[in-house]
């Protein structure tokens, strides 16, 4: 089953085309990586697919729901962690987690198991009573992740979730993601860490709003005779720029 489908998705802001004619599909249970330089259009794409922003033209479906016409019911199936997650700085760690567990109607054993697991990964167990506003930058980021992962959505959108997260926690976070994939959750993952992109089933490279390449990481590397994705992406972008410039 197709979990995410975009057809000629386009979004303009005044004279900037932030997302330019994107078409792609992500099957259920896949982790799809979205990478691209700063300002490429990753966040805008996420906002379109989560029904927060309307496209200027084009269409999209997420878990069968149309991103404009069904933007409300679409939200029942998805989880979204934005680049700057909305924590309540005047609530404690535990109050924030409970707040999101309530919103998503997570209860009973599932609730306590989840909370324990997520606070464990984030290293926040000793700081349950601390105000979120008093946490360090990375601790806030991890609390945001814990809140976003408190329920199991059908499709999970993560916008650069590991920015500011230390290497130890980043490893633990990926273990959680692999477990979600086993439960058939579809993950749409924007990142500027290319080692994380390598672990995605497929990656899409966007630049200036356009999808320049979308494939399995190994194939992309092979095609461009590159050792790393970073090397391949630099080649792809340079090649594209030299054509576009003419």
């Amino acid at each position, binding site marked *: 089953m197709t979990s995410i489908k975009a057809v000629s998705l386009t979004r303009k802001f005044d004279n900037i085309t932030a997302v330019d004619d994107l078409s792609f599909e992500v099957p259920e249970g896949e982790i799809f990586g979205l990478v691209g330089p700063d300002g490429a259009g990753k966040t805008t794409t996420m906002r379109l697919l989560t029904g927060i922003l309307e496209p200027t033209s084009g269409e999209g479906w997420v878990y069968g729901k149309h991103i404009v016409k069904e933007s409300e019911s679409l939200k029942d199936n998805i989880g979204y962690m934005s680049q700057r997650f909305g924590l309540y700085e005047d609530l404690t760690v535990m109050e924030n987690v409970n707040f999101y567990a309530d919103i998503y109607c997570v209860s009973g054993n599932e609730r306590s198991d989840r909370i324990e697991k997520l606070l464990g990964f984030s290293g926040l167990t000793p700081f349950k009573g601390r105000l979120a506003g008093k946490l*360090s930058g990375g601790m806030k980021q*991890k609390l945001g992740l814990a809140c976003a992962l408190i329920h199991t959505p059908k499709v999970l959108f993560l916008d650069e979730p590991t*920015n*500011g997260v*230390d290497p*130890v*926690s980043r*490893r633990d976070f990926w273990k959680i993601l692999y477990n979600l994939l086993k439960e058939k959750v579809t993950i749409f993952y924007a990142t500027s860490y290319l080692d994380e992109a390598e672990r995605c089933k497929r990656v899409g490279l966007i630049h200036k709003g356009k999808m320049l390449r979308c494939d399995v990481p190994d194939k992309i590397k092979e095609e461009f005779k590159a050792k790393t994705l970073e090397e391949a992406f630099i080649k792809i972008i340079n090649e594209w720029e030299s054509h576009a410039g003419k």
Partner: protein
Amino acid sequence: MPENNTVAVTSLEKKFGNFTAVNRINFEVSGGEIFGFLGPNGAGKSTTIRMLCGIISPTSGSGKVGGFDIIKEQGKIKQNIGYMSQRFSLYDDLTVEENIDFYSGIYRVPKDEKQARKEKIIGLAGLEAFRHRLTSTLSGGWKQRLALGCAIIHKPKIIFLDEPTSGVDPITRNNFWAIIKDMARNGITVFVTTHYMDEAENCGRMALIYKGSIIAMGTPEEMKTKIMKNTVLDIRVAKGEDWLDKIETLKGVEEAALFGVSIHAVVKDERAAIDAIKDIFKRSGLKDYKVTKIKATLEDVFVSLIEDYDKEHDESKKS
């Protein structure tokens, strides 16, 4: 001794209530050095930087930054250093140019130099096309570039960068580091934090702080050799994520994680661990795999030191 670009702290401590965020740390940074301050989330990096920049006062201990006392001369420090905080310090409702003008104003950049510096910064950050754009509409990575530019507009002798490259794309990260190295070559002292261990390779020296204490300090090379006590094995196997649990729970394996596409396993006894790993592959009839000993990366060292520290301290608690 000229000390207008050095940093030194003695027994520096910061408590919030009865929680110790920074626990009596000592270090020195010489002029023109790139000093990396690494550590897990909540280790005390930003708190230390805030004390060094004269934003908060230590609860005990002392320190000097650029020859100024971090307790008695906080104003002087702020005027003479550059500081890029972890959270955006920009005004969202100003344009790119207006933000730069604002910072050159508060840092009292001489009038006849303002324009030239502004152009330099815009060029450096690659913001030419965005100069009249409202900061709120810039993408995350662009904001970060602008923040770096604003932090160095007054050509400070010492600069504190708290995760300057967080959320910045790989190409721009390389540019950032080219700028940082260039500053150091010109005698500017750079104190920098990052969670990207590949970037930390660029530091002359680094300290690893954990739970408020400095637990290791040295050059990148020293960290990977003298300070690293464990061996790292690189395991190449299809669908690495499916093997991770099995390998991690093997006796003799301290830690296993995906590293790009291969698995890195940190082990104490190399021979025994290699045999044990090969054994689980053999038993499931798998032939296509490769296990090799490799030189530890900084990320391996980082994770290994943290885990060892936790183990030691858990045990000492129990006994």
